[in-house]
């Protein structure tokens, strides 16, 4: 059990780094608190797996430090770090039975036969593998094999952190849901730090207390699902989280006054004049209302999802999506939009201005 801190961590798979793009991870600073349930969320290729492999010790970072309880473990191997990691595709030992597969990490650490048996049976019970416990592991389906991989990660009770690298990719949707709830349940029971890598926002938001969003080799925001939704600190977070994502519109800032194409926008933010190469207003579709006056738009399309309506509109500065209650009357051709002041943010070069 420990707190894991990453300090000024950068990694590159190339031998020399010239451009920003040469880095797989750039200047990552983060503390993972003991016992937390974290999700590492981001699109494919943003550096999630690299970060995970650096925490587990499979990769040595190009720069920076990893501390477990303030002790530097940067040069220690996975065994010394005492971590568990589960991979995207099932990894099983073909020649062994399911039991031996689950017992393998324990046997390698010289744990007594009886204790191994208890532990393995407990995990097998939880993952519903009891009936096939003494079968050859190679005969199982992809689901079953991935359950073994999960089991091998969960079987040691003293690990510092359990990391999941998109572990449910190969599992079918129905079982995915069950296993995810199991993991969540397990987290509450054993109270280990868990880091769950995924590119699926639903998966991240349902599993984690804290979500770490990555984008182009950087961490752009760390927060609870609500924080990510209500106050994205980076336009990518606004765009990536939520369905549909945040509307991002180019704006002008003049002496603290914000305007989109000549229409003044009210926010709660007191903006000092700073120089940015790009300034934008961000507003979630949920926080936009139709009104008598405001930002003029044309209605393009209305789709009713049952729970609510999604309205595609077009302003002179770009498309804006609006979410309204199913019962709302939608103007037919042109309309005016009002942004809720407390949820309207301004971004300078993609980062929030506060």
């Amino acid at each position, binding site marked *: 059990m420990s707190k894991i801190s990453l300090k000024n961590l950068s990694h590159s798979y190339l031998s020399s780094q010239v451009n920003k793009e040469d880095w797989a991870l750039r200047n990552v600073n983060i503390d993972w608190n003991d016992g937390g349930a974290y999700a590492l969320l981001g699109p494919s290729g943003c550096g999630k797996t690299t970060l995970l492999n650096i925490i587990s010790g499979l990769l040595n970072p190009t720069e920076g430090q990893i501390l477990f309880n303030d002790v530097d473990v940067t040069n220690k191997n*996975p*065994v010394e770090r005492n971590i568990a*990691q589960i991979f995207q595709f099932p990894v099983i*030992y073909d020649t062994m039975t399911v039991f031996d597969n689950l017992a393998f*990490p324990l046997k390698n650490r010289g744990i007594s036969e009886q204790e191994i048996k208890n532990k393995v049976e407990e995990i097998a019970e939880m993952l519903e593998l009891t009936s096939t416990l003494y079968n050859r592991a190679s005969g199982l389906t992809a689901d079953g094999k991935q359950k073994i991989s999960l089991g*091998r990660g969960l079987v040691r009770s003293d690990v510092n952190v359990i990391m999941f690298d998109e572990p449910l990719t190969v599992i079918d949707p129905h079982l995915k849901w069950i296993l995810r709830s199991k993991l969540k349940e397990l987290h509450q029971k054993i109270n280990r730090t868990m880091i769950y890598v995924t590119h699926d926002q639903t998966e991240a938001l349902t599993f984690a207390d804290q979500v770490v969003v990555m984008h182009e080799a950087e961490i752009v925001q760390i927060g609870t699902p609500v924080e990510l939704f209500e106050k994205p600190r980076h336009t990518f977070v606004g765009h990536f989280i939520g369905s549909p994502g945040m509307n991002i519109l180019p704006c002008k800032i003049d002496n603290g006054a914000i305007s989109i194409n000549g229409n003044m926008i009210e926010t709660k933010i007191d903006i000092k004049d700073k120089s940015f190469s790009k300034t934008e207003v961000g507003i979630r579709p949920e926080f936009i209302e139709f009104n008598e006056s405001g930002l003029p738009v044309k209605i393009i399309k209305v789709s009713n999802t049952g729970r609510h309506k999604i309205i595609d509109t077009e302003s002179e500065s770009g498309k804006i999506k609006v979410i309204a209650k199913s019962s709302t009357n939608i103007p037919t051709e042109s309309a005016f939009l009002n942004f809720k002041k407390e949820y309207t943010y301004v971004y300078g070069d993609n980062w929030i201005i506060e």
Partner: protein
Amino acid sequence: MNKTVNQKAWLFVIPVFVLVAFNAIIPLMTVVNYAFQETFGNNVFMWEGTRWFKQILLSDRFHAALGRQILFTLIILFIQIPLGIFIALTMPKEGIGVSVCLVLMSMPLLIPWNVVGAMWNIFALPDIGFLGHSLNALGFDYNFTQQSGDAWFTTVLMDVWHWTSLVVLLSYAGLRSIQPAYYQAAEIDGASRWSVFRHIELPKMKKVLTIAILLRFMDSFMIYTEPFVLTGGGPGNATAFLSIDLVKMALGQFDLGPAAAMSLIYFFIVLTVCWVFYNLMMKNEGQS
């Protein structure tokens, strides 16, 4: 729906059938024909029934040749398979070293068999050959043309040099196809180097190793050219393996009947061993 019956498609098989007939069926049937008859030339044949088969199966000469053959095959399998796996494991996994190693490994496989025999013959000559001369200079009494132990040593060494590469290349291909996640998982599970080999690498190499063992068994069991050029089966009959003995009987003594019977027995042994071996190795495949 009723299938239309049209046997004309068989016509397409004719070219292959003719080809196979000329290169396999007719020669084989000729051998079968000889195996049951006696001839004194002039195309005159007399029916002998199973006499040649009985004679061969009961002859000490055949037993000795078969014994030498089995011993030779076992020795080279026990050397080449582990050695091949070991070399494959130590080969580089990326960079320029990969191509260099692969080319070096392929070299012996590209040399014609009689050239291999000739090379090793000269290489091992006790007076002028590099190997023979060096061994004698080091104080070993080495002469492969006169001492049967030395002849065996040289033949085995030659075969190991010639064919271990095949096992290496197959094993290397098997190893390269293992996903990195397996090694990463094993590292996290705290597996020892031996466990990684025993539980990941060896099972993943199973198929290619089956092929490697089969190929090496067949080739070594039917070996002819290289020992023929190197030792000519000698000294005496020390390295007269089955095929060398067979050629001696058929072309040296012109005993066509017994030689044909021996060919069939020889063929049958190879076929049986391959069949049994293949089935044993593949027995568990159905489950996975």
